[in-house]
């Protein structure tokens, strides 16, 4: 799904990620469709659709609907849908509806979660070539 070998070889991936500027979708922007990136994506606006990236940061003002696939995801705003990520961080301002498939999760005090947070082993994300169409 997302290149896990890259995650294991720490230093080159860190250099790659530091290189390109992270994409930043401002509060005024509304995107309907699919976002694909191999870098970092910051979202402060409204997105409905699938987002896949190496790392996704949802700001406090965002409203996001759909599926998110990334190595690490940080949520600070409203999200409804499914999250597939190794590392998930939910900030105090997060409001999440749906399922969070994770390997490591951190939830701040005050975060609102409606749904389930199933833990998955590392090889689940490794073998995840296609997202399950029907919610498992």
């Amino acid at each position: 799904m997302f290149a896990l070998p890259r995650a294991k070889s720490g230093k080159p991936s860190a250099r790659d990620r530091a290189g390109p500027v992270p994409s930043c979708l401002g509060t005024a922007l509304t995107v309907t469709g699919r976002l694909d990136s191999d870098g970092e994506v910051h979202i402060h606006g409204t997105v409905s659709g699938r987002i896949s990236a190496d790392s996704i940061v949802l700001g406090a003002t965002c409203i996001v609907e759909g599926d998110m696939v990334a190595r690490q995801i940080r949520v600070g705003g409203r999200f409804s849908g499914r999250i597939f990520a190794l590392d998930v961080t939910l900030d105090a301002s997060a409001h999440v509806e749906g399922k969070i498939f994770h390997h490591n999760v951190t939830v701040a005090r005050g975060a609102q979660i409606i749904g389930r947070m199933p833990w998955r082993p590392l090889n689940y994300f490794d073998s995840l070539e296609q997202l399950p169409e029907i919610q498992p």
Partner: protein
Amino acid sequence: MTIFQRTDRTPDKSAEADNAAKPAMRDTPAQPEPAPVIAPRPQSYAQPIAPVSTTAKPQSSTSSQGAPMSSVISKALKITGQLESSEDIQIDGQIDGDVRGVHVKIGNNAKVKGTVYGEEVEVAGTVEGKVEAKKVVLTATAHMSGDVVHQDIRIESGAFVDGHCKPEFGKTAAAKATVVTSPAASRPAAAE
């Protein structure tokens, strides 16, 4: 509150017992519990967790006052779908779909397949589709295949343009406005 209190005890005894037990209970599990859970994680997953802290840095640099209004689509990002913004958009990545913004800047290596609407559109990359804007700037590296509807245009030497340039941005809007208003205006007159 009542749901958290035990009802099977008498209030006097339970209050005493709870008061005696609670401080001890709160102190002991609350402090040691996070310690064993959190402590081993940085060791085993030090690499995945570390970048989370670095993500905060670009966020704070892009947004001087909380969340930024304008958007930057970097070269690593590809968007399939529509973009709508009431602020500026800078595109350095790839977009398959329509873009609506105020000041839209299409960077050097950017590629847009679709219509770009805006007040001011600056093209330095590739656009396959229409550009509709009040002010259009095609720089030397621009590769524009499609029509340009504008009010004010600047084309630099070296720009590739394959399409019609029509100075009809304001006119079409005005024409549409008159078309919309004229039947509405004529209908009551006709009815009367």
